[in-house]
C-alpha cells in the first residue's frame, strides 16, 4: 500500500489539554479568592471559638463595627473613639430607614479584637441599642479543636 505524502509535515503540539488544565486552575483560584477581604482588617485579631457558626447566607443590611485592641472603632477607614460612634450610627440608621427598612431587622456585626476591653464592646453595643438596633452578631474565628 502506497501512502501519499502531503508535503513536508509540520509537528504541531496539541495545546488543548494544557489550556484546559490552566483554565481549570484559574477557575479554582478565582473561586477561592476571598472577596470579603475589604471587611477584614489585619489590625483586628479576632478571638477564636470552636462554636462560632459561619453565617448562613447573607445578612440583611449588615453594619460592621470593628473594635481595635486599644478601644477605637474602625469606621470608613478611620479610627473613631468609642464615644463618638453615635453620629455615624445615626447616619446608618437614617440610610436604612430611607431605604424603607427597619433598623430592628438590621444586624450589627461586632468584630472586636480579642484584646479589646469588654467594657468598650458593651459600650458599642449600648450605643447601637440606643440607635434602635437589636440584632448583634459577635464575630469570632472558627477553629474546630
Amino acid at each position, binding site marked *: 500500500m502506497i501512502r501519499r505524502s502531503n508535503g513536508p509535515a509540520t509537528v*504541531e503540539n496539541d*495545546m488543548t489539554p*494544557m*489550556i484546559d488544565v*490552566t*483554565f481549570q*486552575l*484559574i477557575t479554582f*483560584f*478565582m473561586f*477561592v*479568592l*476571598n472577596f470579603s477581604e475589604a471587611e*477584614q482588617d489585619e489590625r483586628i485579631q*479576632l*478571638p*477564636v*471559638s*470552636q*462554636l*462560632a*457558626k*459561619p*453565617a448562613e447566607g447573607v445578612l440583611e443590611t449588615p453594619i460592621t463595627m470593628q*473594635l481595635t485592641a486599644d478601644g477605637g472603632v474602625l469606621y470608613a477607614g478611620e479610627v473613631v473613639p468609642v464615644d463618638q460612634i453615635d453620629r455615624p450610627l445615626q447616619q446608618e440608621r437614617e440610610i436604612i430607614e430611607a431605604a424603607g427598612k427597619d433598623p*430592628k431587622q438590621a*444586624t450589627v*456585626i461586632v468584630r*472586636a*479584637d*480579642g*484584646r*479589646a*476591653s*469588654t*467594657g468598650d*464592646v*458593651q*459600650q458599642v*453595643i*449600648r450605643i447601637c*441599642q*440606643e440607635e*434602635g438596633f*437589636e*440584632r*448583634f*452578631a*459577635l*464575630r*469570632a*474565628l*472558627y*477553629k474546630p*479543636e
Partner: protein
Amino acid sequence: MTALPRRRLEKVAINMTPMIDVVFQLMIFFMLTLNIIAPEGDFDIRMPLGKSAGQPSDDLQLPPIKVRLTAQADGSLAGIGMNGEPVSDFDDLRQRVAGIVDAAEASGAVAADVELELDCDYNLDYANVVSAITAVSGRVDDGRVIEMIKKITFAPPGTD
C-alpha cells in the same frame, strides 16, 4: 469576468503564545492573591434596649443564670463565678451550665428559654467573653454540637 485563481486550502495555524502568556499571568495573579484564612463565625445575640438589666425578656419561669467574669489589672481573667459560686475554668462552667440546662429540660422547660447574663469587668479582655459564650452556648459531643443557651445578655458595664 475572470476566474479567481484557485488557492490551495491551507490550514490556518493560530498563534497561541499570547493567549498562553495571558493565561499564565492570570494564574500567577490568582495564586499570589490567595491567602488561606480561617472562616469567621458569629454568635447571634438579640438584645433590645432595656433588656440588658437582668430581667427576663418575657414571662419566663426560669431565673437567668448569672455569670461573673473578673479581670486582673492587665485585662487577663482573674476568676469566674456562676450564681455567686466560684467556677474553676470554662470547662467547669460548661459542665455546670449543661447540668442546669438538663435539669430545666427534665422539668419540662425548653432549653432555649434558659437565659444567661454575663457580668464582666470593664477592662477584661474580650477574648475571655467569647470563651465564656462558647462555653455556655453549646458543647461538642462526638463531633456534634449540642446547643445549650441561646439567650445571652450583658449586664450594664460598670456594675458590680
